[in-house]
């Protein structure tokens, strides 16, 4: 009998701990209003300074390969052309040199300094990889033999989990200046919009606007 009472007492004491043993997590981390707003701007930043810049980088790599037949730190097998020089109207290349946008297609329509890049495939933003389709027009401006300023016009869509997805587009064109800092195009001018939907119902419209630096921007949502 004593033994049974002992086991019951142990069980009862553990149950008594129940009320005291709830653990809480940091509420800021799990989604405060300000954190949520910041996260929204990070998402659009990832499109503007990640996705678009990745395409500029891929195009510059392709142009370098087109001119010199090789690219530092790249494989020659990463470039497949339809036999036309990348500066020639009608040129169509597939580039796998930039891993994040492997298989992006570059095409040239007119005898100018403009190319169109398209891709329909997975793209990772902050480690979350989802189907992303886009069409980007890039117009080359001044630069050296390797890196240039670019004027970019973009439209695209992205499909994520739980019914969420978004459309994004540039308001006119966005200018990226390669600047003196090298290869990161941290100077930008222009606006990128995003419309977010859930189960095909629009839940938000937001924009990010650059007026010089990609680290100094204006972000608004709930529009």
């Amino acid at each position, binding site marked *: 009998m004593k*033994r049974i009472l*002992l*086991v019951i007492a*142990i*069980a009862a004491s*553990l*149950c008594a*701990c*129940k009320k005291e*043993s*709830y*653990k*809480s*997590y940091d*509420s800021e*981390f*799990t*989604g*405060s*209003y300000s*954190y*949520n707003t*910041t*996260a*929204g701007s*990070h*998402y659009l930043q*990832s499109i503007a300074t990640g996705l678009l810049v990745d395409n500029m980088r891929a195009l510059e790599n392709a142009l370098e390969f087109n001119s010199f037949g090789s690219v530092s730190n790249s494989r020659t097998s990463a470039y497949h052309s339809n036999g036309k020089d990348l500066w020639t109207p009608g040129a169509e290349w597939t580039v796998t040199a930039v891993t994040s946008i492997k298989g992006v297609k570059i095409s040239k329509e007119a005898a100018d300094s403009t190319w169109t890049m398209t891709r329909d495939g997975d793209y990772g*933003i*902050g*480690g*979350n990889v989802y189907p992303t389709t886009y069409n980007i027009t890039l117009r080359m401006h001044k630069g050296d033999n390797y890196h240039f300023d670019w004027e970019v016009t973009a439209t695209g869509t*992205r499909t*994520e*989990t*739980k019914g*969420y*997805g*978004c459309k994004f587009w540039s308001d006119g064109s966005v200018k990226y200046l390669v600047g003196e800092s090298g290869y990161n195009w941290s100077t930008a001018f222009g606006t990128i919009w995003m419309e*977010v939907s*859930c189960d095909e119902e629009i*839940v*938000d419209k937001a924009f990010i606007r650059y007026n010089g630096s990609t680290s100094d921007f204006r972000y608004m949502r*709930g529009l």
Partner: protein
Amino acid sequence: MKNRLILAILAVIVPLMSYAQPGWMGKVELSANISGAPYDIEFGDYVFSYSSSDLASIYGPQTRNLEYLPVFSLMAEYKFRKNFSLGLEAAYTHVGSDYYDPFTDEYTGVYSKHTLCLMPGIKYRYLIRNYFSLHSGVSAGAALQFGKDGSEAILGVIPAYQVVPIGIRVGRDLYATLDYYMGNIAFGVRFGLGYRF
């Protein structure tokens, strides 16, 4: 994957049960246990993960005031061979949070999930000394989950399994255990107090 694991566990338990011999019977143990965070807290992907690069996290209901109970369990064991015992474990845990609107920051509801599971299992003891032994074990069964997710009810049964790769037991009739406890109900360390009848 879970179904395969359960089948594998059963494939071990059932043949061992057929070896049970009356000569080794006569020892029953009861214990109460408390383990660390429930599986949902450690690995759940519905409420408790948050990412600034995922639209569902940014625009979906925002979760705050997350809280959880450690996993409490009661276990009865029956030693059927010198080193083996069969057990039945009943466990309970709860996770919960509040929902807030991502735009207005207003409270919109509550997430509350209770998990109650029943898992038969088998334990193997080794390096047995007077007041000390090591053990390993597996248990598998089912878990009833109920509660609410905003305005929607949660009700379902899922497979439940736990594995103890290694555990320490100290004591004789009255004993304490410390286990490394991993599975889809709890993950971490489990502490237990029990009595051998």
